[in-house]
């Protein structure tokens, strides 16, 4: 799929935005560099900040290639940052001894460090063969700015923002990404203070001034570092009520109880609909009370998850089935091998 379809879908929901932030994530767009971590960076000023990032990256591995992300000027979009991309191979031997995923650990630590330092560079996308494209502006302008129709991906995420916490800040636009996982989110996490403090005790640093960031890190912690299946991770983030757990058969009750107790500080509260993706799958879920809309559509081997049916129909007029999942129930689409 090229990016024109999802641009069209997103433009159906402009009422949900304010023209201050939009973004796209696409998987499978860098086949020539599929073994490299594709780092997408906002530079405040290329001449000032780039040499510093270059040397940091060179310390930790090899930059196979880097270039400005191709853009095109849009009258409605003022480019306050210069988007850049690096194709980077970390030196696994530099990871802390005993690391199970040394390359991932180097890259995630680099992302945390560079972003927390705030020295004119912000790494907003760090996975292999994928990229996030985001900016302040209306979805169509952001898509055209990044020439999004020129990318061919097999999973796409997109988001239109109506900011309340941090208007006008490009880093605050969705999707949020860390390594393989990208997240878009509609809602406001009322448990943010608990989630943020929990995730920071595992070495993550929240730097984006917005609650969505924490979702990406929680998924990374639960799935990559703790090895939970994604549906179980979702269950930890939006667990069943105790009343439901109490009614489950013994074995099921036991693991659901353990999951809820162990990951109590990871549980997300408040209204949300979230879609997250990695190279193998896409997963959508809402809060336990479903205080934000989420619609699912299927057509052939394609899965669509959206806030509105109109967006699905704009992208796929022949959609075969459309339904609304229950509160907290995850919808998972896996990439066919």
């Amino acid at each position, binding site marked *: 799929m090229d990016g024109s379809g999802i641009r069209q879908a997103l433009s159906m929901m402009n009422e949900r935005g304010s023209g201050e932030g939009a973004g796209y994530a696409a998987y499978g767009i860098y086949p020539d560099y599929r073994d490299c971590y594709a780092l997408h960076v906002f530079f405040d000023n290329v001449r000032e900040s780039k040499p510093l990032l270059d040397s940091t990256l060179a310390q930790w591995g090899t930059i196979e290639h880097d270039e400005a992300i191709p853009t095109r000027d849009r009258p409605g979009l003022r480019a306050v940052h210069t988007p850049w991309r690096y194709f980077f191979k970390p030196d696994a031997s530099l990871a802390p001894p005993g690391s199970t995923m040394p390359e991932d650990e180097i890259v995630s630590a680099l992302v945390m460090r560079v972003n927390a330092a705030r020295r004119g560079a912000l790494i907003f996308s760090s996975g292999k063969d994928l990229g996030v494209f985001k900016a302040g502006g209306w979805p169509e302008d952001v898509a055209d700015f990044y020439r999004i129709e020129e990318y061919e991906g097999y999973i796409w995420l997109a988001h239109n923002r109506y900011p309340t916490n941090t208007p006008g800040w490009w880093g605050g636009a969705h999707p949020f990404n860390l390594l393989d996982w990208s997240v878009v989110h509609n809602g406001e996490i009322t448990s943010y203070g608990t989630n943020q403090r929990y995730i920071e*005790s595992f070495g993550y640093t929240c730097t984006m001034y917005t609650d969505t960031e924490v979702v990406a890190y929680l998924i990374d912690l639960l799935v990559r570092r703790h090895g939970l299946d994604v549906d179980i991770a979702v269950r930890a983030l939006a667990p069943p009520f105790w009343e439901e757990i109490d009614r489950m058969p013994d074995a099921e009750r036991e693991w659901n109880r353990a999951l809820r107790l162990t990951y109590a500080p990871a549980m997300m509260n408040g209204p949300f609909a979230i879609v997250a993706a990695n190279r193998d799958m896409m997963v959508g879920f809402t809060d336990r009370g479903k205080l934000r809309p989420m619609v699912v559509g299927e057509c052939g081997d394609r899965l669509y998850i959206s806030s509105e049916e109109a967006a699905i129909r704009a992208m796929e007029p022949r959609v075969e089935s459309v339904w609304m999942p229950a509160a907290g129930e995850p919808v998972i689409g896996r990439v066919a091998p």
Partner: protein
Amino acid sequence: MIIGSLPTRYRIGIDPVRCMECGRCIENCTYGVYSRDGDRIAVNSRNCTACHRCIACCPRDAITLEEHPCDYRSHPLWTREARETIYNQARTGKIVLAGMGNALDYPVIFDRLVLDACQVTNPSLDPLREPIELVTHLGKRPARLDLVRREGGDVELKTRLTPNLRIETPVMIGHMSYGAISLNAQIAMARAAKETGTYMGTGEGGLHAALHPYQDRMIVQVASGRFGVNIDYLERGAAVEIKIGQGAKPGIGGHLPGEKVCAEISRTRMIPEGSDAISPAPHHDIYSIEDLAQLVRGLKEATEWKKPVFVKIAAVHNAAAIAAGIARSPADAVVIDGFRGGTGAAPRVFRDHVGIPIEAAVASVDRKLREQGIRNEISVIASGGIRGSADVAKAIALGADAVYIGTAALAAMGCRVCGNCYRGLCPWGIATQRQDLVDRLNPDEGAEQVANLIHAWTLELAELLGAAGINSIESLRGNRDRLRGYMLDEGLLQVLDVKPVGA
């Protein structure tokens, strides 16, 4: 005469028009304020403690009570309390005793913290229509789980969880021993704990047989005197709590005078009748953190690892590091008792001057445990000066899992916080062992009122959570973002990790 009479603290007046000389005040006052003098009631205001028993009993509202009717020359440094303590000690040469909690005029941090509510960007929840979960679990948790998916999709839990206590509301009744309070008071609170799905502490006074029907709702205490501790006692409790210290008197032990050790207390505490029950300042088998870990293990071993073990410490300057040490033992929860925590009797100098407020202690314990990556592996219980549901919500937002209440539960049974518990004359039948006084407290009524209080707080907590857009109590725990500090200094805001109002 060198010092002479001090001004009376209270003045009792009887309105002669309203008084019908029924004499209920004379019967009810245990401190000797009232006596019959021919056809009138004579008053000796000097004996009054402001316990309000007479006012509560007077059928004609004839009694008035005035505090400080005749005061000293006002002085900001030489307060009434400062001067009177000097007069008292000049006369006696002794340590001054006091009851209840810290009575100095420190600012109350809880009252300088405000809670949050939702507007527009996220909807507030209505507890009448949507579930709001207050169920809380106390105990050890693993850092991560080993879950295996079997053929067919079933999930198998490989990690073994240690037993947790489940409470239906994050409010428990703290440890007040049989001896410090009456059996009727204990029975009333135990019934209330059962009724409201929570737990109650035994204190260091053993477990009287009358409480056996409620034993699955009792947390049995092991303190430095080891009174009442045997295997039967440990096995009856739902959990065991090691008491290292108490907020009202950090660093010192306890003393139940021999005259209070009647036959029943003697049997329950396993000490001779009439002998003083003295709890030493330290546990004489705990001189270091590893000794504590051994005792935790010992108690777990004795109860076949079936019961959670809590450790209670007083909130002292280094509480955070001590709690981190406790978290590394097999202990399931650490109880932090703040400097406003109540007591039956404590030296006033300790009650008023030693220890730190619970708000700061909980915040720093929660932070320290998080920094060490072990916060969710142990529960934190806050106590000492919890007066209402707002205090509960604030304590949880600062990092506690649940709270213990003490004085509030006693007040629900009539206590007026007069602070004379150590005299054993409590006219409300709470802090006394005199049978005629104990009989004044009907355990059925007491149980109902304590249960009402916990129910009421539970309802209010659900409303507060709903307004904050939170449908489960664990999403409030340590959620400092939902608090703001009002008129708190920058240093304290940093300790509490709370932003000022407007930020």
